[in-house]
């Protein structure tokens, strides 16, 4: 049974001549209690996917096709009051920059409490305070009784992100937590602390975590399964070890090759890189979206025919015409990415 089942989702924005498709025929499931990593570059549609699940696609964009099931509920057909009661209660989101998530003129205690007021209106004020302090303790905020009276600007980036996490969990029944680049704005030593907290909370609350990031290191260290997005489409979905050992899509392989790894490239020598840039919506090649940058393409099928996401090996989905023929992956064989 899936916790979330996204079927043939399409999100469009109005363009000058025709609508721009930012998410294109995307199907993906999230299992109960798993950490699903979603990787992709800026503009590939990963944040828009998160917003679609939350029901917060910014106007004038709209979900033009598809369904998103949360358990038995089809989120896209729900009325706004029912969606509102899900948001922050059973489905929560954490954004990249905690400084802009939090309201600068309210104390953090106030802000966490506000969510509680919305979802548990019957609760007494003193009970609410107690719960907020308890939650702040749980998310590793030191001396919460004092912090509760502080304003966001008085806190460090790491503590602010912990506050945002506490706020996301305060509804108490969170089944799906979406974290959109939650550690990108943080320093490396703090990033490691926050990721550890995510893994602990995910286990403790037995919730599913959709972890959106561009950092393959974050994915490798935390995710159970990984979905790779490119230009609004899913290109590969697999278990984390399978994806890093045996990536089948040329884009995934390019990303893995271009990571600087200690000892893998000689110092000051050229690093493997994917040529070209990500196509903008509206300029996506007709066949495979990765056609222009691919080292394995052919001029017929790849140019004209869009590949479908197909299950090659067990639970390893790839959308590439040559997924089966591409040679085994080796970290140092960089010839395929610099044609």
């Amino acid at each position, binding site marked *: 049974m899936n916790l979330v089942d996204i079927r043939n989702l399409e999100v469009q924005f109005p363009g000058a001549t025709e609508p721009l498709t930012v998410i294109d025929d995307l199907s993906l499931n999230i299992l109960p209690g798993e950490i699903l990593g979603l990787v992709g*570059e*800026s503009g590939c549609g990963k944040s828009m996917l998160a917003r679609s699940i939350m029901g917060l696609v910014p106007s004038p964009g709209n979900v033009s096709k598809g369904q998103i099931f949360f358990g038995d509920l089809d989120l896209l057909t729900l009325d706004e009051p029912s969606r509102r009661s899900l948001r922050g209660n059973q489905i929560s989101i954490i954004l990249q920059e905690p400084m802009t998530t939090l309201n600068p003129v309210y104390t953090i205690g106030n802000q966490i409490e506000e969510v509680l007021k919305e979802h548990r209106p019957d609760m007494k004020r003193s009970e609410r305070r107690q719960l907020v302090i308890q939650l702040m303790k749980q998310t590793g905020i030191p001396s919460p009784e004092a912090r509760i009276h502080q304003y966001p600007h008085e806190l*460090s*980036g*790491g*503590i602010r992100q912990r506050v945002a996490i506490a706020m996301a969990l305060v509804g108490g029944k969170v089944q799906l937590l979406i974290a959109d680049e939650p550690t990108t704005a943080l*320093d*490396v*030593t*703090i*990033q*490691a*602390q926050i*990721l*550890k907290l995510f893994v602990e909370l995910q286990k403790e609350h037995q919730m599913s975590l959709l972890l959106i990031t*561009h*950092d*393959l*290191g*974050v*994915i*490798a*260290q935390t*995710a159970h399964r990984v979905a790779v997005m490119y230009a609004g489409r899913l290109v590969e979905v697999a278990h*984390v*070890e399978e994806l*890093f050992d045996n990536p089948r899509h040329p884009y995934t392989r*390019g*990303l*893995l090759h*271009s*990571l*600087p*790894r*200690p000892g893998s*490239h000689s*110092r*000051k*020598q*050229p*690093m*493997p*890189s*994917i*040529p070209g*840039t*990500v196509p903008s919506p509206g300029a996506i090649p007709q066949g495979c979206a990765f056609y222009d940058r691919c080292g394995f393409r052919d001029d017929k099928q790849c140019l004209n025919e869009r590949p479908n996401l197909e299950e090659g090996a067990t639970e390893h989905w790839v959308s590439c015409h040559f997924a089966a023929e591409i040679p085994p992956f080796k970290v140092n064989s960089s010839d395929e990415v610099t044609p």
Partner: protein
Amino acid sequence: MTQVRESPILELRNLVKHFAMRRSLLRRSRDKVRAVDGVSLQIQSGRTTALVGESGCGKSTIARLILQLLQPDSGEVRMSGEVVVGASKEFRRSVQMVFQDPFSSLTPHLTIRSILKEPLTVHKVCLAEEIQDHILDLVSAVGLSADMLNRYPHQLSGGQRQRIGIARAIAVNPKLIVCDEPVSALDVSIRSQIINLLLDIQKSRNLAYLFISHDLDMVAHVSDTVAVMYLGKIVEQAPTETFFAGPRHPYSKALLASALIPDPKRRSENRELVGEMDSGVERETGCSFRTRCPLAIDLCATHEPVLHYSADEHLTACHRIEPV
């Protein structure tokens, strides 16, 4: 102990820059942020020195002190052996900068051609009739085509914009480029392209780089020397290979251990460093890292460690590491 080598292109001697904290509008408090607190560093011509550390450790203040955008409270910046005071035109020509954010570092209402033309005319790099040829050479040196020239920055992708930022920096034939997190705002698939470009022009133009970054894997790849900063001070400095083969300062070790290895089979449990960096304001005596340090002893609270050679060319500021 140290080997004889050519004199450095840039030398920082005991640089200090403190900022006064303002508590209220009328009353200036006596608290100071010790942004840079006695930093000495050398950069050899044609080589890369990496400056590593977390946000707030003073990396960018050092960049601004080098570029003469700030004047130090004490200490000096020397360029090719001579003390630099204020930015002469000649100095500005020899030191350039590549910024982190390629979106805000290019003037939005100028075409790429005008952006590249400006340094050429200001510094009279070439004759007026050669300018157009020079601009063409610059864009091709950074791997872009001439049809970019009539576009505006917003029409370019992040990677292309960063290439223009690099072209602008090399336009005046500098000797040193300060690269402040030059790839951290770029997508993963573009980063290695830009790194390759930086390595390429370093070789062809014999440029020295001060490479400011928090990405240790990237630093391992591009630099010749690594300097690690914590709260305004350099705590460890060594040639890149020596450093990565065996970092000595507990903070450097923690930084390396916090880096996320892109390999799901190597998930480590104890990689986190407790606590957060202090603000740099209310520092008392002793080592500023001691509150987070797993090796701290009583001595660390009373005496501040100084940089000493713990091995050949390997400088460390820690009481727990024996000098040679």
